């Protein structure tokens, strides 16, 4: 409604509109009537002998050669509905075949490669009975191609298609709508539904965003029944696609969805250099006479009074926009109830340029005549007055009312984002039980659900469980015996201390950390060139766990080892966490190469340390977590002034270059050397170094960055890194920076101080380990819990967001996290608490009723047995045979040296494309993405490995030798000895009988091979024992 006052405040100015329209066109095409010379080719299909012409020459209409019709089903010439009493007119009738058909096509006189081409045609889909009752999928297009495509060809991949098709997604899904596409995978669907019986004028613009003869047509725009003023108002736009680079043929095609009943009339085809030329050509053929504009110029209203946000703008926003554009998770992903968001605060993409409505995207979308572009969608456009008010509001500086629409506090009531407070330990457990706090929490939950738990496991099982669980190695017979013979009441507690003090603990726990860090000893991707000194980080991790390095310090060294005041070789090595990212060797676009590394670092750090799926906010605000795209790029800004590479160490020993060849397979080392040679690098001249992450801007200045061997390494330039300013990448695309951002953590997790430099990553790690941080302690406590029970209290260990699993025992998780915080972030303290609980010490015996109540064992009513990891399986074999070389740390062992150095599996060379067989077979991660929990798969190749690999066969032989030496020749004694060495227990009577009966002569006669003096049958028995479920399961 326009009241009297409003009317007075409005003046009309058609002149202004003209100015805007022209300037907005970027000179691409003009509103003025086109010259005839814009014509490229045209056809009105009026010649009765049209398809019988056989000239191969260029004709006056711009074609070369005749129309080619399909032999599958040619088109017919029929009378046109446009026929008038004065003129006889005809159309081409195309019938469907229920299959691909190219009924009509023709070559242009000249191949067209210019920047833009306009094409228009007239068509009508005849109504049919099926379509009247149900949605009958349709397909009909005009294509523009380099080739004629034959009768049946698919003008698909990279070929501009303009027409109608059944939408398979989006709001138009399951409707026949107008669309444009470059092949089927790159379709833009309009909302304009095809109405049978209606004559349409279709216009399209095909253009090259980068002009050049050999560059792609990458953009398509579509108009359906436009008016003369619609040249700048396409219905659809499809940008940045991969298309053909030249156009030589045009034609129509039908498809599978064009059924034999379908009848399509086509007339008036034109290709031109100007929109107006196409428009006029189509108009002049219809009932409109040429030159007669269908509408007069619309007038643009201008609001001249000062805008009052509360009265003038807010009501429109509220009524027309807020349904989809307000609140924390707006359907659209964009919110307009926050002033900052008009300026692109969280997405980097500004809708408004205050003071300049003409350059404000908001006005474009309000005034667009495109179905898929105008806001509000599927609804009446805003009125002229409303739009005029919006223009004025922008031009006057985007005034806001903070009382009405205050800037929102980013906050969430999600449990994991709340500060950790220490829960009381429940007291409701039966008085008879010794109250271990963990048991108190667990038993309380079991009681709530009326679930009965099992009794304690035997001491034999306990020691085996404790060793395999905390060390990844089974106990030796001596260790088992000594524990079983220790009758003191604190024997188990002492055992726990002993195990936690073992240097092998770090190798076990460290491997889980390496999974999280997606660590490997190569660059990844196609070439996967070795990173010779990446092993130093592996050792850093192992040593850190062995020393029970406080977790906060552990994180600080890994995130900011180059920034710390007390920086040392050790903290530099620690940055290998960030530097475990892969980097492509043949990415020539250095911006993309660098951005991909940054993405990897951000995704991994957020996932491993915070348990957040921050990667979802790379291209848009997170769909269900309170994480914005701004959060993502602020997090990225912590790292963007740094780079991965070889960093010189000060204290480390020089390692001779020829040594390195013993760390990798021959072929990968030779490849490394040849690539180094191409770069004119001689690794032999390197001083001692590590593979790490360094920022010459925020890191200590005395760190030296050595050249990197890769096919096309990222150049290293301190000046470049200094100039790096992180911006939000609009829609996540490298090369399209939006608003610049400063380093910061996700706003929902706490306020970021205005000043984080000069050492931002150190500030990040300080924040991570502050007691206010709600996630870090919970996430880590949960991972420790998972390492013992196979499943975390939160079963999605790297997703603590609103879509992660809820904790099965929330109180217990917070209690554990509090314990971590109040005990100096001691990881071993948590292990100790957990493994001394009764919950941990339970047997795995099944209680049918409990199984029925809780089949997943969520409430831990029994010990959850599970298969050992690849490393623990291989290492267990080596312990059983007494061959394990227990040396801790050092360079990795390549396949050719495995047999001479029977080291733990964690020390086998981890080139990503060449992982040890035992790891790829038994579900070890591939070092590409952070792995928070390993799968357990069961495939037939696994038993083949354990039964036939020379490695395991050699171990069986070795075990048999040991047994012969220890247990003599008596079969039953041998059997007992093998049981003890492999399963850590004696056989039962029936097991012993079964085992002895395996030997061909059970009468205790030994069958020794004459050639090798090997006891074949004993070897085979030993080998069998290494294959048992009991052997490869954590009991």
């Amino acid at each position, binding site marked *: 409604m326009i009241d009297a006052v409003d009317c007075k405040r409005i003046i009309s100015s058609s002149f202004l509109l003209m100015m805007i329209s022209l300037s907005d066109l970027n000179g691409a095409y003009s509103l003025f009537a086109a010259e005839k010379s814009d014509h490229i080719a045209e056809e009105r299909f009026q010649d009765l002998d049209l398809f019988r012409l056989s000239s191969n020459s260029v004709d006056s209409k711009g074609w070369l050669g005749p129309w080619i019709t399909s032999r599958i089903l040619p088109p017919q010439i029929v009378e046109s509905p446009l026929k008038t009493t004065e003129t006889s007119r005809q159309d081409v009738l195309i019938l469907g075949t229920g299959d691909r058909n190219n009924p009509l096509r023709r070559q242009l006189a000249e191949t067209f490669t210019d920047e833009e081409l306009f094409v228009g045609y007239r068509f009508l889909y005849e109504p049919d009975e099926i379509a009247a009752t149900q949605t009958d999928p349709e397909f009909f297009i005009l294509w523009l191609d380099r*080739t004629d495509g034959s009768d049946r060809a698919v003008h698909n991949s990279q070929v501009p298609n303009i027409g109608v098709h059944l939408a398979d997604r989006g709001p138009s899904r399951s409707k026949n709508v107008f669309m444009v596409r470059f092949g089927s995978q790159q379709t833009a669907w309009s909302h304009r539904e095809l109405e049978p019986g209606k004559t349409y004028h279709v216009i399209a613009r095909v253009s090259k965003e980068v002009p050049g003869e050999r*560059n792609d047509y990458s953009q398509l725009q579509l108009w359906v029944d436009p008016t003369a003023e619609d040249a700048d108002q396409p219905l659809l736009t499809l940008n940045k696609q991969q298309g053909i680079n030249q156009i030589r043929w045009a034609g129509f095609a039908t498809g599978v969805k064009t059924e034999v009943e379908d009848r399509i009339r086509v007339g008036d085809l034109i290709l031109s250099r100007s929109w107006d030329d196409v428009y006029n050509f189509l108009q002049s053929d219809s009932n409109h006479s040429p030159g007669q504009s269908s509408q007069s110029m619309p007038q643009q209203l201008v609001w001249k009074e000062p805008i009052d946000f509360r009265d003038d703008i807010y009501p429109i926003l509220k009524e027309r926009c807020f349904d989809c554009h307000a609140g924390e998770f707006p359907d659209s992903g964009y919110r307009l109830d926050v002033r900052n968001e008009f300026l692109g605060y969280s997405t980097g993409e500004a809708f408004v340029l205050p003071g300049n409505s003409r350059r404000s995207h908001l006005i474009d979308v309000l005034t667009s005549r495109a179905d898929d572009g105008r806001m509000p969608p599927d609804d009446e456009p805003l009125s002229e007055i409303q739009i005029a008010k919006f223009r004025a509001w922008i031009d006057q500086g985007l005034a806001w009312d903070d009382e009405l629409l205050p800037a929102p506090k980013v906050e969430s009531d999600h449990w994991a984002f709340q500060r950790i407070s220490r829960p009381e330990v429940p007291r409701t457990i039966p008085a008879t039980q010794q109250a271990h706090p963990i048991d108190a929490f667990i038993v309380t939950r079991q009681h709530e659900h009326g679930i009965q738990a099992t009794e304690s496991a035997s001491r034999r099982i306990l020691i085996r469980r404790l060793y395999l669980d905390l060390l990844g190695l089974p106990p030796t017979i001596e260790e088992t015996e000594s524990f079983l013979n220790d009758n003191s009441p604190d024997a188990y507690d002492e055992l726990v201390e002993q195990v936690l003090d073992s240097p092998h603990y770090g190798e076990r726990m460290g491997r889980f950390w390496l999974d999280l860090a997606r660590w490997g000893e190569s660059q990844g991707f196609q070439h996967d060139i070795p990173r010779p000194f990446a092993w130093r980080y592996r050792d850093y991790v192992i040593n850190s766990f062995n020393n029970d390095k406080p977790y906060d310090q552990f994180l600080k060294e890994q995130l900011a080892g180059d920034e710390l005041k007390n920086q040392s070789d050790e903290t530099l090595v620690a940055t290998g966490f960030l530097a475990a990212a892969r980097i492509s060797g043949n990415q020539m676009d250095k911006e993309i190469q660098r951005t991909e590394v940054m993405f990897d670092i951000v995704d991994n750090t957020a996932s491993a340390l915070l348990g957040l799926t921050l990667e979802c906010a790379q291209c848009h605000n997170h769909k269900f977590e309170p994480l914005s795209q701004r959060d993502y790029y602020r997090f990225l800004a912590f790292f963007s002034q740094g780079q991965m590479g070889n960093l010189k160490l000060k204290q480390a020993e020089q390692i001779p270059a020829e040594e390195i060849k013993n760390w990798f397979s021959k072929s990968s080392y030779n490849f490394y050397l040849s690539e180094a040679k191409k770069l004119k690098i001689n690794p032999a001249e390197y001083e001692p170094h590590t593979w790490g992450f360094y920022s010459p801007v925020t890191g200590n200045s005395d760190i030296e960055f050595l050249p990197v061997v890769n096919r096309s390494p990222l150049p290293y330039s301190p000046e470049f890194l200094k100039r790096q300013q992180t911006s939000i990448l609009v829609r996540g695309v490298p090369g399209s920076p939006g608003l610049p951002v400063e380093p910061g953590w996700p706003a929902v997790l706490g306020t970021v101080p205005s000043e984080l430099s000069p050492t931002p990553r150190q500030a990040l790690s300080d924040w991570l380990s502050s007691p206010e941080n709600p996630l870090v302690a919970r996430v880590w406590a949960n991972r420790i819990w998972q390492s013992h029970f196979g499943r975390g209290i939160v079963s999605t260990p790297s997703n603590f967001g609103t879509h992660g699993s809820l904790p099965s025992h929330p109180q217990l998780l917070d209690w554990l996290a509090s314990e971590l915080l109040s005990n100096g972030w001691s990881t071993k303290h948590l292990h100790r608490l957990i493994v001394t609980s009764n919950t941990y010490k339970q047997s795995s015996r099944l209680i049918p009723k409990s199984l029925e109540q809780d089949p997943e064992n969520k409430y831990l009513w029994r010990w959850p047995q599970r298969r050992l990891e690849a490393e623990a399986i291989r290492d267990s074999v080596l312990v059983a045979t007494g061959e394990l070389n227990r040396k801790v740390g050092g360079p990795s062992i390549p396949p050719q040296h495995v047999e001479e150095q029977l080291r733990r599996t964690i020390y086998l060379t981890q080139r990503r494309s060449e992982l040890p067989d035992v790891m790829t077979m038994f579900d070890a991660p591939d070092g590409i993405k952070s792995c928070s929990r390993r799968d357990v798969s069961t495939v037939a190749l696994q038993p083949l*490995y354990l039964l036939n690999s020379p490695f395991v066969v050699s171990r069986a032989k070795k075990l048999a030798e040991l047994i012969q030496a220890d247990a003599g020749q008596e079969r039953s004694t041998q059997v007992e000895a093998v049981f003890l060495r492999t399963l850590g227990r004696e056989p039962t009577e029936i097991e012993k009988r079964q085992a002895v009966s395996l030997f061909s002569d059970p009468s205790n006669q030994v069958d020794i091979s004459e050639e090798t003096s090997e006891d074949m049958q004993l070897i085979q028995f030993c080998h069998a024992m290494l294959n048992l479920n009991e052997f490869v399961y954590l009991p």
Partner: protein
Amino acid sequence: MNPIQFNRRVLLGEAGLGFGTLALNALLQSNSVAHADHSKTSHQQGAHFPSHVKSVIFLFMSGGPSHVDTFDPKPTLTKLEGEPVPASIVGNVPNIPRSGVNSKLMASPFSFQKYGQSGIEVSDLLPETAKHVDDLCVIRSLNHRIPVHGPGECVTLTGSGLGDRPSLGAWFTYGLGSEAENLPGFVVMSSNTTGPAPQRPGWGTGFLPARYQGTLIDDQRGVPYSKLPDLYSTDDRRKQLNFIHWMNQQHLTEQASNSELEARIESYELGFRMQMTAPEVLDLTTETSHTQQMYGIDQKPTAEFGRHCLLARRLVEQGVRFIQLRNGGWDAHGALKGNHTNRAKATDLPVAGLLQDLKQRGLLDQTLVLWGGEFGRTPTTEGNRTGDSRGRDHSPAGYTMWLAGGGVRGGQVIGTTDELGYVPVERPLSPHDLHATLLHSLGLDQHKLTYLHNNREEIPTVLGGEVIQEVF
């Protein structure tokens, strides 16, 4: 002793043994393999429409065989030897790096002849394959935009240059399972591994479960770790397995229901059958010397690829679904004449032998054979080399592959490149079109073969591709 004899049929029949049906189903459905997480499969295995084609043999010539020196003769190239590329052609070539349009044209050092009833021209590099030209459907108009080996290999074998999607073979075994009960359903063999390294994604599973991955087989050693160690007789192994089974059953009893443990028990039986079958299948000595000669196994240059081709036929006989033979070293940047002569010599006879053998055994109809590389090679010389040291650069903008068997209409050529062989001028086709065609040939509808991943129904041709109808 208590003989613990069982076989799969007994197990199937007698649930009384305590096997959870879940575990069994997981194992049986997917040829010898099980996965703890079998609930995710959103597709019922089996073809969408009837097809008599059962297997695919992909002869992947890695490095990029030159189309203008093999299946796409260009007399104009001979005429313009040493000339710059005419401007009229340069304009046609998409702006991809290293398309070599500024270098000099190089005539093929090989001559072409017409062969067979169809009269399709083939160069004298491949005289043996040429004899089967009436069985070949030669596609001369393939093109894509990736001029680098690794991503090119990935796009050819997985559809995506990033190598982050399932390989074609994985989709086939996921979609159809395998009829080979005692062998992996997707087998990969690699010969002459000089040149660009094989790309793991080429036989990987991407987001599909690990059990659909290709198994890399060494023709000498067979299925990884399938050779019975010297110290065993088959009887020894059987007895040993019986003992393992008995012990595992004891262990399971204490645990009662545990499908993971049950699956592991069953995997030993399947592994054993695989081990028993594989050496027989891989043992080529049972073939007549005539057959061996047909594949060139008796001659040094052809022996390795000949063995692989013969094995491919034997695997087809066993019902293996997808066989990928990778032959490396076609990357002739320099000395193309020598390089291609050697590569052709090593592969021509074996490929011809395979076609002939499949045909005479009536297997060609049920086996789709596909030959080609990740791209072709430019019509121009790379750099400033002269004489026989000249080679060609990568040409993804236009190249040739061929199909045979599997209902393919032989003796036809699809598509044309321009007079120099730079870009298709008729019927341009993409690797994705080829993927759609392969799926179609075996009765799979590319749009119905779905797998639910991250709440999204993934299909094999998500990046496009349409069945090339005229192939059949």
